[in-house]
């Protein structure tokens, strides 16, 4: 393979953004719309091609690209395995949907919004491709700039507070990770992930380094108690911003845990498992209860995101195949379903200018098609068998039962609570009588909205019934992580 396909996937959206920037004329949005749709769909096709040519039976990294970057210090190294490919496909899949949704709903400064989303796509794909810690950090942090602008420029009334909170929380978590990465460079002699994986980080350093990485990923996941930026950011962000935030930005942290925390610090990961379990359980139960009390639909979904990500962290730290595959699946499923739920809220918000639950009711009488889709996603979010949500949660709980009954039982209550707030949401918004005359005058979703929602719906159901393609892709890589983890623990025991 000589063609640098990963670099092209990373930098194609940037090129598109550059084109839009250069063709920037006042009141001339159509060229920007075409360029952005074209770039994002071309990128999606490229990632499909990547997935198609990806070898499921090869353990280790594929499509490796390597260039000298900072001479003598760091190489620009890209590569993917069964875990990252899925996130790349997810990112490339969600971006065109975001672009279409913002073409529908964004009224002011559309060009700049499209540029921001395309640049963000570059950074997000970069995160999942990079095999060097510095490159990873670079992409991980760079995503803050476009997201800050998306929340701040196109956001709601409290946008400034939320944008600041988002930016500073994430930055604060990440700078410690930067310190840890530089420390690893001097302790091990490289920041190349594959090298570190072989050389192993000395045990005595692992604990502090793990905590430094944890501080970054915990904020981004977000885990309780540093989750408070998420509801604010979600509520104030425009629909497309919320979708990207929920579907992909949060997944970076899960990916980070899986790839870096587990891969580089197996002993510390084992040591800190009780901490992660405790925080995850609190996240699942506490935020579910909080979600029950929300008046704002977006806030409700935001809190449900925290709870769902609690399942993800729980699954990752079970260190068994069911748990990790479950949390991978949960991340992808959450990426699709929460994205769709935010889009649904966006549909209502575009029409009424309100996200409050109490201003709706009886929507099914006036927007039947919308209601059907909305109910499907609500059921998906609460993990109904037949949707992707079920498989993720089921596997995570299976993995959790294997190692700790108490944790598994507590986590299971989250499933019940999730059903409670999701169904109650559906009941208050979709069913019943219209509280408000505005609702009675609403128009049903148009073709464009229907198309993107139905695509998401199909994906969710297809993989809900037939999860094999996803599981096959990640299987070998997940096994590799578990194997490495167990080897390290055994070595550690023998040394003792």
């Amino acid at each position: 393979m000589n063609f640098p396909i990963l670099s092209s996937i990373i930098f194609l959206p940037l090129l598109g953004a550059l084109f839009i920037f250069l063709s920037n004329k006042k009141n001339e949005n159509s060229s920007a719309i075409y360029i952005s749709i074209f770039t994002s769909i071309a990128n999606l096709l490229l990632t499909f091609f990547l997935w198609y040519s990806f070898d499921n039976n090869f353990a280790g990294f594929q499509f490796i690209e390597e260039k000298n970057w900072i001479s003598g210090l760091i190489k620009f190294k890209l590569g993917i395995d069964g875990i990252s490919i899925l996130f790349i496909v997810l990112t490339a899949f969600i971006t065109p949907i975001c672009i279409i949704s913002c073409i529908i709903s964004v009224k002011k400064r559309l060009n700049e919004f499209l540029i921001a989303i395309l640049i963000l796509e570059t950074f997000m794909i970069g995160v999942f491709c990079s095999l060097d810690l510095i490159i990873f950090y670079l992409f991980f942090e760079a995503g803050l700039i476009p997201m800050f602008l998306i929340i701040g420029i196109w956001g709601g009334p409290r946008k400034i507070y939320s944008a600041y909170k988002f930016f500073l929380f994430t930055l604060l978590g990440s700078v410690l990770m930067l310190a840890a990465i530089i420390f690893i460079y001097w302790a091990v002699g490289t920041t190349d992930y594959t090298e570190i994986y072989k050389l192993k980080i000395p045990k005595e350093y692992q604990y502090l380094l793990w905590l430094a990485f944890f501080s970054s990923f915990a904020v981004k996941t977000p885990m309780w108690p540093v989750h408070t930026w998420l509801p604010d950011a979600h509520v104030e962000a425009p629909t497309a911003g919320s979708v990207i935030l929920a579907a992909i930005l949060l997944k970076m942290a899960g990916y980070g845990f899986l790839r870096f925390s587990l891969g580089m610090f197996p002993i510390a990961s084992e040591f800190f498992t009780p901490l992660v379990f405790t925080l995850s359980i609190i996240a699942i139960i506490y935020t579910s209860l909080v979600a029950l009390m929300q008046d704002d639909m977006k806030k409700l979904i935001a809190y449900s995101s925290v709870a769902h990500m609690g399942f993800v962290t729980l699954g990752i730290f079970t260190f068994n195949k069911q748990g990790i595959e479950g949390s991978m699946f949960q991340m992808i499923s959450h990426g699709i379903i929460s994205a769709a739920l935010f889009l649904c809220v966006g549909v209502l918000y575009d029409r009424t200018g309100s996200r409050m639950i109490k201003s709706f009711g009886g929507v099914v009488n006036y927007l039947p098609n919308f209601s059907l889709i909305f109910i499907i996603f609500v059921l998906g979010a609460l993990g109904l068998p037949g949707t992707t949500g079920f498989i993720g949660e089921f596997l995570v709980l299976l993995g959790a039962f294997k190692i700790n009954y108490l944790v598994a039982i507590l986590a299971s209550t989250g499933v019940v609570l999730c059903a409670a707030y999701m169904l109650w949401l559906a009941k208050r918004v979709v069913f019943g009588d219209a509280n408000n005359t505005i609702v009675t005058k609403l128009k049903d979703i148009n073709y464009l909205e229907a198309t993107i929602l139905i695509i998401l719906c199909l994906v969710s159901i297809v993989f809900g019934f037939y999860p094999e393609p996803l599981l096959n892709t990640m299987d070998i890589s997940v096994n590799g992580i578990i194997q490495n983890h167990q080897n390290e623990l055994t070595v550690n025991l023998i040394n003792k």
Partner: protein
Amino acid sequence: MENINLIIPEIALFLGICLALMVGVFFKNSFSIVMKISILILLGVIYLILADWGGEQKIFLDSFKNDKFSDYFKVLILISSIFIFFSSDQFIKDKKLNKFEYPIIIMFSILGMFFMLSANDLILFYLGLELQSLALYVLASIDRDNIISSEAGIKYFVLSALSSGLLLYGCSLLYGFTGSTNFDEIGVSLITQNTGAIFAMVFILVGLAFKVSAVPFHMWTPDVYQGAPTSITNFFAVVPKAVGLAVIIRFMDLPFKNIIEEWQTIIIFISIASMILGSVAAIGQKNIKRLLAYSSISHMGYALAGVATGTVSGYTSTIIYITIYIIMNMGAFACLYLMKIDGKYSEKIEDLSGLSKERPMLSFSFLILFFSLAGIPPLGGFFAKFFIFMSVIESEMYILAIIGLLTTVISAFYYLKVIKIIYFDDNKIKFDDVRNLSIKATILLSCLFLSLYFISPSIIGSLLDGLFI
């Protein structure tokens, strides 16, 4: 016969200044022509330095030293001065400061800096410093009818004279305790634990810390930045800072090489204090020049963190830092030249509100420059900080690194504030349309450099190979 070739750039600069002075005296309204001559002279001097690049040689009883280190900094300050001349031309004319003395005084201060950079002897160093300082006193109060500018000038004069005095006292102590004024000889004889010489070191360090406006010797910075005309502030923010840091590195690398334990603690303290104060005090500022003053204080803190390591990689990272810092500040100040409302230059941050709707390109430049100043990847400012922290952590100074990283988060807050005002707030004031190619070119070059730096981050480092032996 001494090898006089080494000092040719200085001689050429001096003769050029005399020529420009003559032109200024004998022709009326000669500002523009003196300005053009000055730019030509500076370009010529760059050529002379580049023609004899590298190669370490000493003349005049080893008191004048030319090496790659001094050459690099000389070219750096010359290039930034040329950009300042170009971009501030319009501003100077609008402010009616277009007297021919303006470029000449700046060139005199550059001449002083040349001697500071090349000095290998305390006496020559002090003479260069005084020449530079004298020129800077005049520059700070060049807008003499403006009361704030005069105040800034006086403040700078009194404090700077005090610090020069301390520095001179340190120099004489150093001579007394080591028996030499030559850097190399001092370096050799300071091997033993010499308490008197350590006193001298502290005094010298105080004087130098004042020049780079490191906490606790930073008091003058915000006032002078605010009081002086923007073009002078631009010069103050960039050139003397670079030279000050270069001289600090020189001192730490040569005469004080063997007492690293003694000065390291002091520099670490100064560095941490600058980072913290610079980030915290900037939050409440309403004047953009004061904001940039505090931002430069905190940037000096990061740069000094590289010096504090006392290693070659630390010094190199400081030089990379200061280079990127100069590029960021050139761009940021060039943006200030465009903040013109009804013919008057504005300095209030709130006047920027909603700028993004009126002037998308200018706002985008602000965006790149301020995110870069905040050190957010993938912009140039991030790599500057990255190299500093690389070397700090290499030297196992973890506390310094952690504090430095945490203060970047605090300082991100006030940079974000400016971005927020530009992008998120509603439009209130309309800026004049300044059509000036040189200002826009400066901004464009600076932004292009900062946003494309990630393609090859080792480019500055490769220039610096073999700077220290």
